[in-house]
């Protein structure tokens, strides 16, 4: 368990740096997290983050495939938006727990 300050707010993080309480999330915090990695978030990024947050809130499983079918972006676009490990990065910025899906 660790705490870190983002956008003037102390956030509880788990061992992997993911939010323990998604309600503490805000757009400003996400932008600041991205900035740490030298990235800037666009409206498209935030649309994806909102989609992820809603999926998790519903309790449904989150996969790269489901993001590809979200209508926001296709899978190729998702890799472009969050380069490297997109699902890990997007869930990190979305303030939800680390993804547990294999696809």
């Amino acid at each position, binding site marked *: 368990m660790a705490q870190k300050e983002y956008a003037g707010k102390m956030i509880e993080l788990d061992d992997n740096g993911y939010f323990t309480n998604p309600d503490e999330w805000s757009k400003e915090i996400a932008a600041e997290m991205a900035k740490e990695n030298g990235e800037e978030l666009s409206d498209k990024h935030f649309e994806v983050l909102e989609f992820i947050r809603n999926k998790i809130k519903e309790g449904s*499983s989150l*996969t*790269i*495939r*489901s993001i*590809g079918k979200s209508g926001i972006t*296709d*899978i*190729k676009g998702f*890799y472009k938006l969050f*380069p*490297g*490990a*997109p*699902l*890990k990065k997007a869930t990190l910025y979305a303030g939800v727990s680390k993804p547990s*899906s*294999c*696809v």
Partner: protein
Amino acid sequence: MANEVKHPLKKVLLICAKGNLEDVLATLVMANGAVMEGIETKVFFTFFGLDGITKKRMNKLHTATVGNPAMRMPGGLPFPTWLGGIPGVEAGVSAMMKKQIDDLDIPRVDEFLEMIDAGGGEIYACKLATDMFKLKKEDLSNEVKDIITIGEFYEMADGLQTQIIFT
């Protein structure tokens, strides 16, 4: 031990030589999983594994009901080998497997190949095996980047933190 420096995987090369539904899917799950982790990924399909990237066959793969001791009836009772040999049983079992796989949001083979390709993973077919099965580039999925020899595939395994996995 606490200060041990870790060297995370940077590149994975997978070889799929079998064409059962579960063999091809295992390769695809591992390949896509690597792509998702940001690991450079290359997949080589050879021998019966080629069914997994052959347009006409890739979405019609079966699971073997004969000679598969891990096969179980729904509920967990053993699945007798003689039952697996009856016409239609293998198709039925395969359909059931596909349904269960679909429920887990695992895509069909063609869509899986598209996902790997979209993430930057590369798919190759084996030169020797395509010659043997008389397959041409146009018989193969559009995501297949090239038909190459095993030597050319090994050449791609350059650099540190690279692994070759045979499934």
